[in-house]
């Protein structure tokens, strides 16, 4: 990834990682955190899609993961449901005050622990509770700005149903405009088989590659190679790939 980005994700950026189901978004995000913890950075993961216990089980797949990262407070996992409950936000939809309370809670946690790498998985699930597009825009813009000021690099996971050329890179259409970077993950269908791909669409402050890369999820992390030009298109237009 560092090679594709010509040096890595710029410090303090808010990056949207958009992808279809099973494309490797969570694995990529977890590696981002574990690599940070390996170099002594405090990291946090807010999970809205799966319980933290399950997430920790998945993180063990990495050969370079060490339980000490959790015990020493370098990797901190928070269940969004617990956070909602703690803030008294056990409701179906959030209004302006709720959104501000949520931003304040996340920023307080980042500030208190000194988090420099943050993942919100997924921002789609979180934004479902925010009914107005304007509120979603305000939420993401304010959160991104505050986290950037604190020097925190953030990955916002976004779930999309298609990663094709014509697809939106976010569920609500506003996340992509606010993010400093967009990484798209999906599948290319080749003769009935799905090949995972990753493409950096935007990354402010870098002269990154915009090529489609094939990825493989391994115990030593996400491995990438440029996708074959003659095989980068799906056999037919499908909901999976381009």
């Amino acid at each position, binding site marked *: 990834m560092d090679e594709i980005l010509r040096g890595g994700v710029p410090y303090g950026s808010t990056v949207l990682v958009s992808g279809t189901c099973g494309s490797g978004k969570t694995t990529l995000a977890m590696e981002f955190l574990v690599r940070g913890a390996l170099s002594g950075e405090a990291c946090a993961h807010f999970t809205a899609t799966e319980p933290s216990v399950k997430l920790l089980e998945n993180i063990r797949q990495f050969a370079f993961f060490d339980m000490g990262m959790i015990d020493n407070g370098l990797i901190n996992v928070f269940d969004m449901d617990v956070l909602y409950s703690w803030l008294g936000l056990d409701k179906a939809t959030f209004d302006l005050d709720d959104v501000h309370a949520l931003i304040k809670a996340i920023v307080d946690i980042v500030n208190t622990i000194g988090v420099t790498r943050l993942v919100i998985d997924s921002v789609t699930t979180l934004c479902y509770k925010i009914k107005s597009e304007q509120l979603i825009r305000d939420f993401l813009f304010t959160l991104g700005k505050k986290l950037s000021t604190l020097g925190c690099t953030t990955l916002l996971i976004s779930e999309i149903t298609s990663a094709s050329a014509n697809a939106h890179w976010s569920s609500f259409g506003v996340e992509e405009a606010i993010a400093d970077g967009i990484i798209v993950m999906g599948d290319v269908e080749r003769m009935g088989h799905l090949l995972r791909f990753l493409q950096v669409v935007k990354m402010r402050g870098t002269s990154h590659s915009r090529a489609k890369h*094939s990825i493989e999820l*391994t115990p*030593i992390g996400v491995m990438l190679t440029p*996708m074959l030009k003659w*095989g980068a298109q799906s056999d037919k237009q499908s909901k999976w790939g381009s």
Partner: protein
Amino acid sequence: MFELDQRIAEQLTLVSLNSAIQVRCGSSNAFMVTASTMIPLMQMFEMGGVYICATRGAVEIIEAFEAIEVDVSHIHFLDLVSSGILGGTNVTYPNISFVDSPIMLESVLLRSLYMLRISGSEKNFVLLDSVNALAIYNNEKMLAEYLHAFINTFRQRDVLTVLLNVPDQVPPSVLANLDLYCTDLIDRGQVVIH
């Protein structure tokens, strides 16, 4: 008794680690040529490596080596064949891993790189068995592009690349590209009289 082709071992002494060798064989001498290439690499040059099985399943190849009393337990086998066979992946050898299909070319490259990263050997080879098996599933342009990327990826990492092929079963354009990309040729192809 199984006899190795000693001339292949002699020829291998002349190649450097970042070479790409095209090994041509016939359909009836394929295993003899493969073994005559693999055995010197493993025993004379003490190399580890990855064997990409696109022609036959990995178990069959391991058993063929066991039959001639050659230990290949330190070689990683990447099997592109057995996932397409019901129960084919139910094997006991710990040094075999599987890719779903020979059309998943990028996965083959990445899996090979992964295996080399976890390999305990300082000197490694990657043997593709075979180009003609990949040609069954992949179109000529994609295969030519892939071989270009494949060879250069491993050469850049000082991994010896060995590409096995039966010339009369490989599309002419792919064969022409192999001639262009490879640094060395071991020719044990059989003359076919039609």
